[in-house]
C-alpha cells in the first residue's frame, strides 16, 4: 500500500512548525471577474495565506451566508463556468506555490463526472476538494476516485456530529478535517462559539492530526485564539467582503492582517 502524501496536510504541518498554525483563505472563482479572482487569490498567498480554498459558484449554496451568496450569484451572472475553476487553479499555481483546494457542492461534480473532474483538477495542479454537502457515508464514489488520483478530500465535522460520525470524518479526510465552529452558515461573527474548542477536543480523541476551524472567523485575534488549539483557521466571508468593497489591494491587506494571527 502506498501512502498518499497530502499537499494540504504538508502545508498545514509546515505552518505549525514555523508559526502557530495555518491560515486557510476562501474566495469564489469568477468574482468580481475571473481575472480579478485569480489576482485576489494570488494576493492572499503573497500576504501569508498557507492554503487556498477556491469556491465553485453554485446556484443553490445551502451552507453559505449572504456575503458569499451575493458573490457567487455575481460570478454566475458574469458567466463563470465549471471549466473556469480548473483554469483558475492552473493560473494561480503558475504564480504561487500554496496548495489549492476547490470548495464545491456535489451536483456540479456529478454532472461533470466524478472521475473526469478529479483528473482535470489533477492536471490543473489542484490539491483536492472540500465538499460541504457530501458526507463520508454518501461519498463512496469520491472516496474511490480521490484514492486513485491522490487528491485531498476535506469532510466537515459539526458540533452536532456523533462520535461515530466524527471518527468517519477523521478517518476519511485527507489534508484536514473542516471543523465547523458553530451551528450555522458561513458569515463573520463577533463571538466564536465555545463549541469550536469542544469539537476540536472531540476530534482529537478520534485521532485527528490535522484540523482547521472555519465559519464565523474574521479577525487576527480570533485566529490567534483558534490556533492555540487547532492546526488551521479558515476565513471566507470577511475576505470576500474585503474584495467586494476594496478590490485586490484590500483583500491583500486583510490577508496580511489576518496572517498576523498566525505568529507564535
Amino acid at each position, binding site marked *: 500500500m502506498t501512502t498518499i502524501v497530502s499537499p494540504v496536510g504538508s502545508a498545514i504541518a509546515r505552518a505549525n512548525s514555523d508559526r502557530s498554525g495555518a491560515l486557510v483563505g476562501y474566495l469564489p472563482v469568477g468574482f468580481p471577474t475571473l481575472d480579478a479572482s485569480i489576482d485576489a487569490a494570488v494576493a492572499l498567498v503573497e500576504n501569508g495565506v498557507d492554503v487556498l480554498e477556491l469556491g465553485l459558484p453554485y446556484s443553490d449554496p445551502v451552507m453559505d451566508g449572504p456575503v458569499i451568496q451575493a458573490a457567487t450569484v455575481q460570478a454566475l451572472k458574469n458567466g463563470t463556468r465549471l471549466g473556469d475553476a480548473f483554469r483558475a487553479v492552473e493560473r494561480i499555481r503558475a504564480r504561487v506555490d500554496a496548495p489549492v483546494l476547490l470548495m464545491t457542492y456535489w451536483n456540479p461534480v456529478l*454532472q461533470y463526472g466524478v472521475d473526469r473532474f478529479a483528473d482535470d483538477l489533477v492536471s490543473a495542479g489542484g490539491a483536492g476538494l472540500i465538499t460541504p454537502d457530501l458526507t463520508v457515508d454518501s461519498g463512496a464514489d469520491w472516496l474511490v476516485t480521490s484514492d486513485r488520483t491522490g487528491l485531498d478530500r476535506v469532510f466537515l465535522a*459539526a458540533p452536532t456530529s456523533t462520535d461515530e460520525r466524527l471518527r468517519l470524518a477523521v478517518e476519511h479526510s485527507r489534508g484536514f478535517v473542516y471543523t*465547523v465552529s458553530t451551528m450555522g452558515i458561513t458569515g463573520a461573527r463577533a463571538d466564536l462559539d465555545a463549541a469550536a474548542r469542544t469539537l476540536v477536543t472531540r476530534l482529537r480523541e478520534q485521532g485527528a492530526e490535522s484540523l482547521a476551524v472555519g465559519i464565523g472567523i474574521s479577525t487576527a485575534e480570533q485566529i490567534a485564539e483558534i490556533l492555540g488549539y487547532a492546526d488551521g483557521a479558515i476565513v471566507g466571508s470577511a475576505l470576500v467582503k474585503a474584495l467586494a468593497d476594496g478590490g485586490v489591494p484590500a483583500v491583500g491587506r486583510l490577508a496580511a492582517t489576518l496572517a498576523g494571527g498566525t505568529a507564535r
Partner: protein
Amino acid sequence: MTDTTQTSTTPAAPTPDAAPSLRAEAGPFFGEFGGRFMPESLIAALDELDEAYQLAKLDPEFHRELAELGRTYTGRPSILTEVPRFARHAGGARIILKREDLNHTGSHKINNVLGQALLAKRIGKKRLIAETGAGQHGVATATAAALFGMECVVYMGEVDTERQALNVARMRLLGAEVVPVASGTRTLKDALNEAFRDWVANVESTHYLLGTVAGPHPFPAMVRDFVKVIGEEARQQVIDLTGSLPDAVTACVGGGSNAIGIFHAFLDDPSVKLFGYEAAGLGVDTPQHAATITKGRPGVLHGSRSFMLQDEDGQTLDSHSISAGLDYPGVGPEHAWLSSIGRAQYLPVTDSAAMAAFRLLCTTEGIIPAIESAHALAGTIELGRELGPDATILVNLSGRGDKDVETAGHYFDVLDEQGNART
C-alpha cells in the same frame, strides 16, 4: 431428491408473495434515486427525525392521534365526486374526483403537516419552519403551529409573495412570520435553501416541516407515508362506488406529494395506470417550464438524487409555471424511480391547457380547482379521449382555487389591472 418432488415444488416457487411490493420502499433510496446529500451540521437532526419517525410508525397511539386529527380537524375521509358534465369533454370517460380541496386549509398539504407537527411535538421541538410556493403548505404549517402552540416561520420566494398575496395574509393572520426570500431566483427552490439555512443555525429548537416528497432522507418516505391516506381512502371509495378498480389514476406533479399520495395505494395494482402531469408552462420546447421528468436529467438538488432541471454544469435552471405550487425545478425521488421502472408515466401540461381545464371544471361542475390541480384535469381530458367512454379515471383534486381567483380573474379578464371586477 427425485424428479417427482422437484416437479411438485417447482410450480409453488413463484408465489404472489415473491413479487416484491412497490409499496414497501422506505428510503433512503428508491432504486438509484434518493439518498442524503446534506451538510454534516444537519445530519444529526435528520437522524433524530428518522429515529423518531421509525418509532412513531410502530406506535399505535401516534396513528390514533393522527387519525383523530384527520377526522375532527382536516375532515377525513375526503369525499369522491363524479363529474359527468366535465367528463363529456374528456371522451365520455367516467371521471371521479378525490376531493382533497375540501380539506381544512384547502388542499392535501394538511395531511403531511399534521403528521410532521405531531412528530415534532414528540421530539420536543418548539418551532416549525417551512418553505412554500403557492402558499398552501405555508398556510397548512401556520395552521398546525397555531393548533399545537408552536412558533412558525415560513420562507417564501419574493416572486411568490407577490403572486400569492392572499396566502401571505392568511399565514400572518394565523400568527406565522412570513419571510420573503430575495436570494437566487426568488421562488420555491430558494425558499427551500433559506429554510435549510435557518435549520442549520437553529436545529436544536426547530423542526423543518418540508412540504413535499423531496429533500434528504427521511423526508421523501415520511411525507409519502403521511399523504398516502389519500389513495388508501380513494381506492376503497372507488371500489365501493363502481365495483372495481379505476383504469387510471391522475395527479399533478410539482415536488410530487399529492401525486404520490394518491398513487401509492395503487402501486401493486398493475391494471391501474398512473399518470403524473408536470407543469409545461409556456411549452416544453421553450425554457419556460417546470417539466422536470420530461425535460430534466438526474442530479442532486436539496439533498436527494432525482430528476432536475439543470444546465450542463449542474447549475439549477429557473422553472416556470402559472401555478406557483408546481414551479419547482426538482421532483421527489420516488417519482423519478416510478418513472424509471415504467410504473408511472409523467407528461407535460401547458399553462394554457391547465387554465382551460380550470375554467371547464368551474362552469360544468361548480368546482373552482387550484391551478395546480387543473394540470391534472387537463391531462385527464386528453387521457379520457384516449381511453374512451368505458374507462374510469380517478383524479386527485389536490386543492381548491380560492387562492387563485386573482390569477384566474386576470387570465380570463374578469378582473381589470387594478384587481377590480370588470363592469
